[in-house]
């Protein structure tokens, strides 16, 4: 953990000309192509794009769960490995272990790292407290609401205090109102303890509300279409999305998204897809 002393504000994440191909040559699928992206230490990056643009693949690469077919991924200058303790990852689904209590689920990363039981429980309780789930410590995942389960998954991703936090649409299954609360909390957690955050989402307003930079991706093959800097003051309350500058940014992101989509439709028509 001593290496983290230099990373109080997160670590640089660099994605350099990365390509990912699934399957064999002929029937293979190019998930990502020529993808480059820099998430500076302590910055909040939001990746947005339509389905199939390789957003989740990109997060898996940074988490070290998938090696790139070409190009290079580095976290603080070195390639991430599976289970890299510098990186915390929260999936689209909570992925809690059903027979463990919420507390034991949150403590799981510590248990895998060989942290003794008593210390584990103390730290897991603190982590649950931070996401407002202290009362649910002894409940099983089946007894939690969707929102509570996602909070628990977030607490699990944060318990090792990783300098890099990856969030793969963690709030996509929640209703709009719960989602807004979550975004506020996520922002608060990040302001309290800055780290490099990369969040994947489908929601344009969510992207503008949270991001320092919005990375718009285009599909087939997945690539970075545009990067839009969001220069809005923090903390950003939910009402902020109604202000002129925010509205302008939302419009800009939306335009970049549909541009990528139109390009795709055009190439599909050119390939004779319309026939």
């Amino acid at each position, binding site marked *: 953990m001593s290496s983290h002393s230099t990373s109080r504000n997160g670590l640089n994440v660099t994605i350099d000309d990365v390509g990912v191909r699934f399957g064999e040559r002929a029937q293979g699928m190019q998930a990502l192509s020529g993808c480059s992206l820099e998430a500076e230490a302590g910055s909040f990056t939001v990746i947005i794009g339509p389905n199939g643009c390789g957003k989740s693949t990109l997060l898996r690469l940074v*988490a070290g*769960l998938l090696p790139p077919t070409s190009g290079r991924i580095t976290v603080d200058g070195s390639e991430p*490995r*599976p*289970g*890299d*303790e510098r990186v915390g*990852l929260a*999936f689209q*689904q909570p*992925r809690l*272990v*059903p*027979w463990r209590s919420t507390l034991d689920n949150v403590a*799981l*990363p510590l*248990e*895998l*790292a060989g942290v003794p039981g008593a210390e584990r429980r103390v730290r897991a309780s603190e982590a649950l407290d931070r996401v407002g789930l202290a009362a649910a410590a002894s409940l*099983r995942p*089946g007894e939690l609401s969707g929102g509570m389960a996602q909070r628990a998954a977030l607490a699990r991703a944060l318990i090792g205090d990783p300098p890099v936090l990856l969030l793969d649409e963690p709030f996509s299954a929640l209703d709009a109102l719960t989602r807004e609360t979550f975004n506020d909390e996520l922002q608060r957690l990040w302001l309290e303890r800055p780290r490099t955050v990369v969040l994947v989402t489908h929601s344009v307003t969510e992207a503008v509300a949270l991001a320092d930079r919005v990375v718009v991706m285009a599909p087939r093959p997945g690539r970075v279409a545009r990067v839009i800097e969001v220069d809005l003051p923090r903390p950003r309350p939910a009402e902020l999305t109604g202000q002129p500058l925010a509205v302008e940014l939302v419009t800009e992101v939306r335009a970049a998204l549909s541009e990528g989509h139109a390009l795709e439709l055009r190439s599909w028509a050119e390939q004779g897809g319309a026939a």
Partner: protein
Amino acid sequence: MRRIGAAALSLVVFLAVWNLATILGGYPEYILPAPSVVGERAWRAIGTGILWEHTAVTLLEIVLGFVAGATAAVLTGIALGKSVLIEKVLSPYIVAAQAVPILALAPLLDIWFGGGLLARVVICALIVFFPIAIATMVGIRSVDPLLTEMLRSLGATNPQRTRLLEVPSALPVIFGGLRVGVTLAVIGAVVAEWAGASTGLGVLINIANQGLFDTPLMFVALATLAIIGLAFYGLVVIVERGLLSH
């Protein structure tokens, strides 16, 4: 309470039908003794100590055979479930061994393992092995791939994954195999005793049936086996409920 009441009632009905059959059919005792005759014979067998003498041996065989067989089966099942290569290499032998009738194999195993308690435990373990190994393999294979990836993202080692995810998630299926296995253990013990033993309930059946023409005593031995099977099955169910209470 209601469940116990229902079970007691079904037992009473069963005994009544049996009794009625002996009365209406007018069968001699050496073909179908009445429940009262069997009960009286059981009382005498308990009194002379002959029933316990044979039951104790069979119980020991069942317990040792089941524990040995189930342990080997769960470990093998984990290996089969985790490695496609191991499954490809081992499963033909396991299936072939299962397809050979244990009744035919028992005398040979009896010779190989010295004809004593060890031989009978081996035979019992062998018959228990297959359903538990297969259940374990299927259970390990059916683990949620999303949870497997989650553990991988947390840097879990292969043994950690087995201990913390695969085995716990396979437990309900493994217990399905244990339920089948424990009843087979009773059959295994009797088959093993028939292959060569001087005591045990299987031996008692042979003595009563062929030596003494004492059909009521044979029924006593059969009823004892049935009760042992029910008791062990119930024990497995109780352990299962305790472990899977969530």
